[in-house]
């Protein structure tokens, strides 16, 4: 079946003269988790994506393979999609992505280029959550209606467990929005989820709108069969409001989640997503069983392209009579100077009682610019210290240093050093652990690029696009070749 699909995909576009594009990501590793044997374990993950476009029809195929010296290897056609669009109608059959509202009830996604590694089986696979089934969409005359029927992928379950377990749940739902005016676009959502011979239904209502100086969004979802906002009703309330003048932009998000653990989807986290590594690793993970909170951000333009960002967020969890509070205050300044140089400095103070962490201070800067017309230099320093309950050191300290040299437009080399005294990270009698690494990037031409990592990689959380996942630590060499046609 898979072989026939691959042949069909290659041959069919030739006959119908479709435009075929594709990309391939090959990641080779030699190395292992710290302290695990063999230390020179090798594996190759490969993801091949092919697309054929012909008039209003699009065919998509994804093949993934994992080659390793044991039974954990696999070769899968992991996505296949036929999409047809005409005059506002879109039909998708196969593996597709869809989101209802801002994703409180349903959000399918992909983190491009990310390879996830399962802790138990050590299998590596693409990090995406799609639905396998049917999607009908109508977008015309002010209407935006979408209906889905299919099985979402549980991406935490690795390919070794097979399709039955990875797609054990069936979801059926519909969302309808109507554009009454720019200021008011109301919508209704219904979703039913079937798993383990149990059926659960949810409904929701949302409204959004925009004007010259502001926009807003409000969404309420709850489990069917309960009175709205009564004690014990599983619900998720999410709102966002943005206001902007010429030099100032304000953004407010609010969340209130109770018993909203769907098992296949998470509501918006409503915390700042950081691009600085140490802060990104410390991102708060929401607990939809009981969480209320907000995020307020102000962005100021302070001349040309220079900006100041201020952010405050807070979340309160009620867990078995215990109240856990997360809060974070963040400020940064981004500044462009001397034509080709730019710098960004930040300070951050936070607490996350779900992790037992208090008095978490983080600060750092990054400065980057051209030393000649082609060559550039970048320096980044991040420092963090925190207190954590039940940890044998008084203060946990993390540091990150990075120095990189680049040649436009195709080459960069960076030295990265992380250092910590965190007892969770230390697996021998040392008191300090280091993660030195060398990173090389070479873009050979418009179609091919190489990324090399050699050294020790620190594990931990990584968050992108509101999705957080666990990165395993790694000691060794990793080479990634990305090709596109």
């Amino acid at each position, binding site marked *: 079946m898979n*072989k026939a699909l*691959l042949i069909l995909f*290659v041959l069919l576009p030739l006959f119908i003269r479709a435009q075929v*594009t594709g*990309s*391939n*990501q*090959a990641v080779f590793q030699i190395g292992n988790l710290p302290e695990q044997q063999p230390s020179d374990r090798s594996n190759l993950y490969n993801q*091949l994506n*092919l697309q054929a*476009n012909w008039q209003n029809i699009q065919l*998509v195929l994804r093949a993934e393979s994992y080659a390793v010296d044991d039974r954990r290897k696999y*070769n899968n056609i992991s996505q296949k999609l036929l999409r047809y669009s005409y005059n506002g109608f879109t039909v998708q059959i196969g593996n597709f992505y869809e*989101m209802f*509202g*801002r*994703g409180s009830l349903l959000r399918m996604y*992909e983190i*491009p*280029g990310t390879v996830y590694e399962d802790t138990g089986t050590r299998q590596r696979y693409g990090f995406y959550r799609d639905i396998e089934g049917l999607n009908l969409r109508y977008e015309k005359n002010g209407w935006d209606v979408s209906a889905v029927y299919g099985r979402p992928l549980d991406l935490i379950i690795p390919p070794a467990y097979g399709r039955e377990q990875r797609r054990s749940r069936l979801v059926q739902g519909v969302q309808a929005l109507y554009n009454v005016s*720019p200021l008011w676009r109301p919508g209704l959502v219904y979703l039913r989820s079937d798993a383990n011979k149990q059926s659960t239904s949810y409904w929701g209502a949302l409204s959004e709108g925009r004007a010259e100086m502001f*926009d807003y*969004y409000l969404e309420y979802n709850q489990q069917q069969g309960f009175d709205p906002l009564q004690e014990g009703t599983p619900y998720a309330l999410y709102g966002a409001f*943005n206001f*902007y003048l*010429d030099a100032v*932009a*304000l*953004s407010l998000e609010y969340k209130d989640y109770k018993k909203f653990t769907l098992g296949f989807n998470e509501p*918006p986290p409503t915390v700042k997503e950081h*691009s600085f590594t140490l802060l990104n690793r410390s991102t708060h993970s929401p607990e939809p069983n009981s969480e209320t909170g907000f995020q307020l951000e102000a*962005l100021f*333009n302070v001349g040309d*392209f220079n*900006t100041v960002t201020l952010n405050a967020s807070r979340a309160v969890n009620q867990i078995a009579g215990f109240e856990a509070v997360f809060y974070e205050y963040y400020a940064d300044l*981004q500044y462009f100077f001397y034509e*080709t140089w730019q710098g960004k400095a930040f300070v951050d103070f936070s607490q996350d009682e779900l992790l037992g962490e208090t008095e978490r201070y983080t600060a750092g800067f990054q400065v*980057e*610019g*051209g030393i000649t*017309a*082609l060559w*550039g*230099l*970048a320096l980044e320093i991040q420092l963090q210290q925190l207190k954590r309950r039940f940890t044998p050191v008084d203060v946990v300290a993390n540091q990150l240093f990075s120095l990189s040299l*680049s*040649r*436009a*437009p195709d080459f960069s080399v960076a030295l990265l050093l992380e250092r910590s005294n965190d007892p969770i990270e230390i697996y021998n009698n040392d008191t300090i652990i280091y993660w030195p690494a060398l990173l090389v990037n070479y*873009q050979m*031409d*418009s*179609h091919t*690029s190489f990324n090399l990592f050699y050294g020790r990689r620190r594990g931990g959380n990584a968050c992108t*696009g*509101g999705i957080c996942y666990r990165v395993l630590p790694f000691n060794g060499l990793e080479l990634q*070749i*990305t*090709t596109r*046609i």
Partner: protein
Amino acid sequence: MKILFLRLTFLVMLLGFSARAGEIADFELKDINGQTKKFSMVRGEKLTLVDFWATWCKPCLKAIPKLAAISRDYESRGVKVVSINTDSPRNSSKVKPFARMYRMNYTILLDPNGIVTARLNVNAYPTLFIVNEKNEILYTHIGFRPGDGEQLRKKLDAFLEDGGE
């Protein structure tokens, strides 16, 4: 099956090493004001610099002043900058205030569900394409380093001299 898969993989890699250009099939997306725009409506008369970016992407932010300067300096020569924001719907409402604060003086389209991003096989940010009036991709660049702004200008100058071929 495995052999076929490997052959296809190598075929794609080989084609990648030797391929000349792909094409951007016309598409439509909403802009930051909620208006649906076709790519053919917003592209440049001769060349278009297409930038796939996200608000959380550090190199993307470094590119913005250079792209704004290119937009200002090359518009009279038939070149337009079209940026395609790839933030998820949860963040896409932040793009308009963000664009104002960063003085983005060019077209900004929103691709919150990643449909155009996937169609063009974009899997890293920023990814920049230089596209001619036949929608052929003449040049692809991934990431943004010091000096890349000047290199983009040189490429645009060269393609303009060659008549976008």
